[in-house]
């Protein structure tokens, strides 16, 4: 059992079941992201861990102790909100020291801890300011310092960067991850931004319709999605309905070309997925297999050129780097595209 253990967690609002049988075990110091579209249940799950929602069923344990019956203020779980939620009437220092004051920490100790936390988030000089005198990014750093000041057992972040502009978002996510690593705090991060989840997390929980579709490291999630939803949701993907030529031998056909998958498959057809970067116009290795194709679209995106090619009834996207010596093929040209059959992912429904 992990440091934070969630088992059979369910939540219904009236007849609508928002979270269905959610299970997760988080190790101490791990950074976990809940990734999914709006309404998938990720924030509700987070709020149940925080204590703001009561589960319809299931348990949430921290170090083996069930916390479901505890009120939010008894759980020692820090939370950072999308809208910062800084207390407008308090200065930055008072905001950071709020939890410590509630806990009855002495004034001197509080001042020391506040200074330490503000130093960690790089706002040591801003203690006397009010939240309205800070930028969005600075406010979110204060919110992070405030949540961490009380030394919570678990830190929850509910889409903390969604209200910020793109540049700040990138720098702040790196900062959050660095602080989390430094303090070694167990963290759950809710986001609908796959880039955020992929770049920050030790593991990602991809959620859909209240269910954890896949729980794995970012590399696994991206390269080996186990369901059609995960494959579709994370990154850009070619979805191919291939004919099974020899099920036990794991050979399928795309556009009439036989491709060995290296694993047995069942049924007459099989759902396959392939990343655009796994397809190319020239062979990348000796294992690559050519497929006859017709170029149907060419999109020049600067450093990358995205090409769509028809292979039999399938339509595949492929990304190729822009090099001045190799202009993209014209639309309508008959070409050969190359792929390694091992890059084809077999999807479960």
């Amino acid at each position, binding site marked *: 059992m992990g440091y934070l253990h969630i088992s059979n967690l369910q939540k219904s609002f009236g007849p609508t079941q928002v979270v269905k049988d959610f299970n997760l075990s988080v190790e101490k110091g791990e950074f976990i992201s809940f990734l999914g579209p709006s309404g998938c249940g990720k924030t509700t799950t987070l709020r149940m861990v925080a204590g*703001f929602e009561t589960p319809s069923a299931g348990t949430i344990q921290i170090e083996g102790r069930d916390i479901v019956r505890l*009120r939010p*203020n008894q759980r020692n*779980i820090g939370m950072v909100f999308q*809208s910062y*939620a800084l207390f407008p*009437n308090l200065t930055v220092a008072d905001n950071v020291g*709020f939890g410590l004051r*509630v806990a009855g920490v002495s004034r001197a100790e509080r001042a020391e801890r506040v200074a330490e936390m503000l130093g960690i988030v790089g706002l040591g000089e801003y203690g006397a300011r009010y939240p309205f005198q800070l930028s969005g990014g600075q406010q979110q750093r204060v919110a992070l310092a405030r949540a961490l000041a*009380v030394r919570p057992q678990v830190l929850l972040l509910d889409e903390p960067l969604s209200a910020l502009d793109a540049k700040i978002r990138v720098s702040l996510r790196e900062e959050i991850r660095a602080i989390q690593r430094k303090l070694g705090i167990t963290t759950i991060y809710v986001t609908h931004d796959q880039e955020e989840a992929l770049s920050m997390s030790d593991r990602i929980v991809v959620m859909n319709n209240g269910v954890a579709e896949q729980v794995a490291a970012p590399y696994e999630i991206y390269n080996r999605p186990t369901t059609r939803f995960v494959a579709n949701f994370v990154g850009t993907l070619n979805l191919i309905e291939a004919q099974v030529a020899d099920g036990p031998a794991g050979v399928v056909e795309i556009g009439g070309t036989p491709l060995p998958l290296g694993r047995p498959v069942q049924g007459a057809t099989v759902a396959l997925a392939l990343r655009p970067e796994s397809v190319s116009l020239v062979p990348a290795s000796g294992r690559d297999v050519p497929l006859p194709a017709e170029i149907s679209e060419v999109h020049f995106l600067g450093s990358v050129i995205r090409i769509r090619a028809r292979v039999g009834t399938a339509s595949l996207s492929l990304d190729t780097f822009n090099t001045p010596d190799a202009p993209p093929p014209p639309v309508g040209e008959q070409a050969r595209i190359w792929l390694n059959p091992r890059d084809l992912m077999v999807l479960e429904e």
Partner: protein
Amino acid sequence: MRMQRVWAWVALAFGLVYFFLPLIGTVEFSLRMRRGEYSLDAYRVVLSDPRFQQTFSYSVVMALCTIVVGVLIVVPTAYWVRLRLPRLRPIVEFVTLLPLVIPPIVIVFGYIRMYNTSSFLPLTGSATGTNFLLMMGYTTLALPYMYRAVDTGLRAIDIRTLTEAAQSLGAGWFTIMARVIMPNVLVAILSGAFLTFAIVIGEFVLAALLNRPAFGPYLQLVGANRAYEPAALAVIAFSITWICMGLIQLVTRFSRHTQARR
């Protein structure tokens, strides 16, 4: 466009004349106690009258008690309705509007009937009981203003997230109310408090029918028997109201954390 602007100025001028002319007349009349010259004699007479001091201080104390009770009732109610019972909001708003629809005379007759000396709770049987009854009556009369002021203040902040943030930091309900909610709606509470103060200082019906020595009945008494003093009292009452309004502005201006919202 030009004509529209002219009409706007005409409407403004009419409004100013309508509101200020009677006031100017009252001020001017209050200064004419001494024959042939302007003087502050009427004010001197009023302010040196021991009944003025007694009734005014009585009403000030009642107003302060009313404000405390009003805040204790309204702030937690408005907060809870916004936080947990948003579906009850139309009902609560309707209830808070009732004092504007039901005349004070109906309220006070209800009180007298319910709490007379032969009732189960004979509040009118003692001065303290009647004072309590009067204060609750004032609280009722001020309810629409206090509730709206506080509710508007609560609307300006994200109370749900602030409450959850405080809870996640270990705060209980009392700490949340005292250190997070109250300070952030302080300006709204003060607006409601000053309005309550102005209402209580000038209220006549409840105090007269409950036979309490308040400022309203004193105003009426002087008005019925004297010429210049009632005008002076009216100016004093107006000044109190305006000072209250000015204080609201002052508090808003000097409350540092509210600067961002303005």
